[in-house]
């Protein structure tokens, strides 16, 4: 073996193919880069969350008094103090409010929640607040309006400590800092299950201050508990329930474990589910890369087949013959690894900072994930080597004479290939050429088509995610608006008699042309063992303001009838006419409620895709013990009144907890979507780039392989323009085929993911798998265009072609 000759030969191969080698390496690098860069996102996020939850000492058990109930702090502490397994506990007072953070001319009026925290005896122990800016509240602030704002809310509106903050009742707060606490690591608005950091303001204040503001001196409505290391949570729960039954028989409690906290559960599930998407994406990219690599190396070996045959005829040992093509595999492997590490780093940095931005946590784990880095690198090295090895092996096992003789693949094909070859194609012969070229090597074309289809499938998948969420939210919005798009729903901070001053002064304001009261209560629906949370609104079913739009059944005035979401009906396995169990609050005393179970009849199914939403006739208030009480006022402003006017007016009213503007319901959602859209654009960019690389490679190899044919056409006087047009037609055919396959494939994955994973993760929603034609078309047009136009890049190559040289060579 003459190694110097060998290296020279390998070097010439590289020089001739360096662009293709580089393109393939980049395709692999995108695949392995996404794999290595995102492979550890789940671990990174879970470690970061663990650190953050531990760091701020999140509760093990949270006890909520049933809505509207308050109990004296001291008595509750005394009642629970002796329970075995409780290490420490803190009472809190959580009340809804309206927040006015208007600054520098911007009107910022949003719903919020004040969390009164017990700062006594050495400050906060459970569910501490991590300070991002300014200072924390301390024991010394007790009784003063010192407040820490949620960091995400402050960040969203660029609020700085010291800025003016008012809450309902026109109370000015002393905004001392912004920070984070476990229950609000993510803001989940009640109405729409999506980002809500701009539409909801959590405010953290000393307990006494909140008690003063709300006039509930000494009272709490929430307890957080940390248990001993190995405490039996169920036993502790029973003890707590027993203690409440014994001491506060009229007050119901809702007990939640750390793991059931919906923000926490959602964050952990998100981390896991997102990882599945990254993994799928990395897999698709890797699959695309694999197809491209196999394609290129197959062609490369094919083009060396005669030389391989000649070498075999000369008696060169097979393993030495195989070395030359393998060298190219090695080059791809090395370049791919270098690019892959680079891409991986970029992907990792990009996505990590996106995560840090989307769901900021106080504490972060390191971001590099070595296991996936190592696996990704190995895949990047092994893939091109295997890809080259297979066709090489095939080439060296045939008898030398076959290798020398077979000028073209077409010589050795049966079945479809043969049939396609003889398929008559109408039209002039240069129109036939692109078809013929595709048909003469159907496998090769198939690989290219598949490679491009993977790219298109990725686009389809992501566009589909976005479109499906948008479609679902649109549906929700439509259902909320129905025949009263201008109404506002005013949630009161407590139950008030319907004829009380608080209620009537809201409704009778000159701003409003119409108003009515309703009740909103949390409950649980169950049937045959299945049970789901529900937010139940009691409203007059003959209302001329708004009633739910029904898909099935009829609205009923009767007590004990209920209208549920179709997702709820499906999940419970019930339909109109069935009886289900409703667990709902029942009022026992002035400020105490208990949960009881009643049987109710499903009389209708409404069109809102949000499962928790249920509606009952106002007549059912007697079931709940809340006759003549209300906690929600629906108002319809007279035409021409702005949202801000309505909000500022309501803000001055006593008793107003929060104001929901039905018309602007989707704004928060749109804000969250904006980020997702940007993210999608990056993905689309990368994917289109990959499709481009695949198409570029296919075209560039085609030009190389057909250099003699092209030179012959030139010799016959066919202009470069026409030759390029033929190539464009060929690429368009490939691009269109790839697109059709890709859309089908992407749509299939989308449906599969919607019906399994997403359904599990966002089980509160009826997700509508949708592909918006416009958004999809743009991606597809881009894909086809990029693939179709790649031959333009070969024009230079053709202009500079040595025509006599190309014609002279005997194949």
């Amino acid at each position, binding site marked *: 073996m003459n190694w110097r000759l060998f290296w020279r030969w390998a070097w010439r191969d590289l020089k001739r193919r360096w662009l293709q080698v580089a393109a393939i390496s980049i395709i692999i690098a995108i695949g392995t880069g996404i794999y290595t860069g995102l492979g550890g996102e789940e671990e990174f996020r879970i470690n970061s969350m663990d650190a953050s939850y531990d760091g701020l000492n999140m509760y093990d058990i949270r006890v909520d008094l049933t809505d509207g109930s308050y109990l004296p702090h001291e008595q509750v502490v005394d009642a629970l103090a002796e329970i075995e397994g409780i290490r420490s506990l803190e009472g809190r007072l959580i009340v809804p409010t309206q927040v006015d953070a208007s600054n520098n001319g911007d009107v910022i009026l949003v719903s919020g929640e004040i969390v009164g925290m017990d700062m006594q005896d050495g400050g906060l122990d459970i569910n501490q607040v991590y300070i991002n800016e300014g200072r924390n509240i301390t024991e010394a602030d007790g009784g003063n309006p010192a407040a820490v704002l949620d960091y995400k809310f402050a960040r969203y509106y660029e609020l700085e400590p010291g800025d003016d903050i008012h809450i309902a009742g026109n109370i000015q707060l002393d905004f001392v800092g912004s920070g984070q606490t476990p229950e609000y690591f993510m803001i989940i608005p009640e109405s729409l299950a999506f980002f809500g950091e701009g539409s909801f303001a959590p405010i953290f204040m000393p307990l006494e201050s909140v008690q003063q503001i709300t006039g509930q001196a000494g009272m709490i409505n929430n307890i957080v508990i940390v248990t001993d290391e190995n405490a039996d949570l169920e036993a502790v729960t029973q003890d707590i329930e027993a203690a409440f039954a014994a001491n506060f028989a009229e007050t119901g409690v809702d007990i939640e474990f750390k793991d059931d906290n919906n923000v926490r559960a959602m964050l952990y599930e998100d981390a896991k589910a997102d990882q599945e998407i990254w993994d799928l994406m990395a897999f698709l990219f890797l699959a695309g890369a694999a197809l491209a690599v196999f394609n290129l190396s197959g062609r490369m070996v094919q083009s060396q087949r005669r030389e391989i045959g000649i070498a075999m005829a000369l008696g060169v040992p097979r393993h030495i013959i195989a070395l030359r093509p393998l060298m190219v595999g090695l080059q791809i492997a090395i370049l791919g690894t270098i690019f892959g590490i680079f891409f991986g780093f970029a992907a990792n940095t990009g996505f990590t900072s996106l995560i840090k931005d989307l769901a900021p946590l106080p504490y972060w784990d390191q971001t590099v994930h070595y296991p996936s880095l190592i696996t990704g690198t190995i895949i990047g090295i092994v893939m091109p080597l295997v890809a080259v090895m297979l066709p090489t092996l095939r080439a060296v096992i045939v008898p030398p004479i076959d290798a020398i003789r*077979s*000028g*073209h693949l*077409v*010589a050795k094909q049966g079945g479809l290939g043969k049939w396609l*070859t*003889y398929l008559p194609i109408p039209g*002039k*012969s*240069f129109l*036939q*050429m692109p078809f*013929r*070229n595709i*048909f*003469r090597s159907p496998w090769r074309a198939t690989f290219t088509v598949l490679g491009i289809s993977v790219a298109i499938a990725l686009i389809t998948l992501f566009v589909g995610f976005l479109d499906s969420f948008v479609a679902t939210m649109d549906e929700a919005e439509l259902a909320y608006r129905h025949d009263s798009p201008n109404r506002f729903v005013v949630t009161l901070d407590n139950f008030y008699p319907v004829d009380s001053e608080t209620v009537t002064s809201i409704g009778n304001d000159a701003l409003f042309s119409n108003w009515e009261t309703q009740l909103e209560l949390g409950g649980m629906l169950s049937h045959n063992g299945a049970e789901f949370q529900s937010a139940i609104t009691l409203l007059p079913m003959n209302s001329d303001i708004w009633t739910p739009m029904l898909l099935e059944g009829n609205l009923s005035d009767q007590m004990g009838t209920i209208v549920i979401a179709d997702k709820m009906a499906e999940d419970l396995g019930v339909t109109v006419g069935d009886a289900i169990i409703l667990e709902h609050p029942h009022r026992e005393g002035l400020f105490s409620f208990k949960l009881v179970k009643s049987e109710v009849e499903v009389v209708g199914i409404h069109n809102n895709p949000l499962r928790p939403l249920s509606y009952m006739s106002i007549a059912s208030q007697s079931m709940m013990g809340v006759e003549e009480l209300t906690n929600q006022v629906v108002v319809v402003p007279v035409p021409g009144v702005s949202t801000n006017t309505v909000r500022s007016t309501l803000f001055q009213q006593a008793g107003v907890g929060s104001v929901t503007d039905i018309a602007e319901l989707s704004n928060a959602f749109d804000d969250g979507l904006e980020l997702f859209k940007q993210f999608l654009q990056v993905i689309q960019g990368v994917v289109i780039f990959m499709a481009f690389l695949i198409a570029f490679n296919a075209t560039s190899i085609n030009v190389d392989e057909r250099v*003699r*044919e092209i*030179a*012959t056409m*030139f*010799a*016959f*006087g*066919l*202009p*470069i323009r026409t030759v390029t047009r033929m190539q464009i037609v060929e690429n368009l055919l490939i691009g269109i085929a790839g697109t059709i396959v890709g859309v089908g494939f992407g749509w299939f994955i989308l449906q599969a993911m919607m019906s399994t994973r997403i359904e599990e993760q966002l089980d509160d929603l009826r997700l509508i798998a949708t592909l918006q034609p416009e958004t999809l078309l743009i991606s597809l047009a881009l894909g086809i265009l990029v693939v179709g136009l790649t031959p333009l890049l070969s024009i230079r190559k053709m*202009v500079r072609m040595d*025509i*006599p040289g190309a*014609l*002279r*060579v*005997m*194949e």
Partner: protein
Amino acid sequence: MITLKHISKRFDVGDNLVTAIDDISLQINKGEFVVVLGPSGSGKTTMLNVISALDNASDGKVIIDGKDISNGGRKNHFQFRRNTISLIFQTFNLFPALTALENVQFAADMRGLDNSEQIAREMLEAVGLGARVGHFPHELSGGEQQRVAIARALATGNPIILADEPTGELDFKTGVQILQLLMNQAQEGKTVVVVTHNREISRIADRVIELSNGNIVSDGPPESGKADISELQW
């Protein structure tokens, strides 16, 4: 029809300067049947390349039909070849993806002829391949491929036919058939230049140009007078 004025063609190969054609001047008239003779490497193919503007001469002028084509733009060269030249390559250069018929049809289509398929069938018939129209190049023997290449060149009907070793792969009988075909073209008024190193073929030419090392060593009618095609033998 074809005029070469002091044509030279040199190739730079690393440190070597290869002179393929060295100051050649000649004139070929319309309707002439010219045979260019010369040993391997004497510059025959290079000369054809220069005439067909596939390659630019290093020095000198190429005048075809009164027009100087040596320094026209690329676009003009393409047009010129499409409308004036029919090339038969030493290495055939058929399109492997097209059948025999389609290869021939391709040339006629490109020339803008209407009944391209019929022309193609006639041409293949003329070269004796009427029965093989649907075959792909790899399904044809070397000689058959060469005949397809010839049919393809003739299908354009262009006034100048440049044939590089058109009988190289052919047996005597078929070779003669092809030569007859080319002679007919000359009789129809086309200018035919046949390149070969087969001295026998030169006997039927109107004129024989002999090249050696890039120079014309002789130019005139065949030594022993123009023979009839039936007298050939090899």
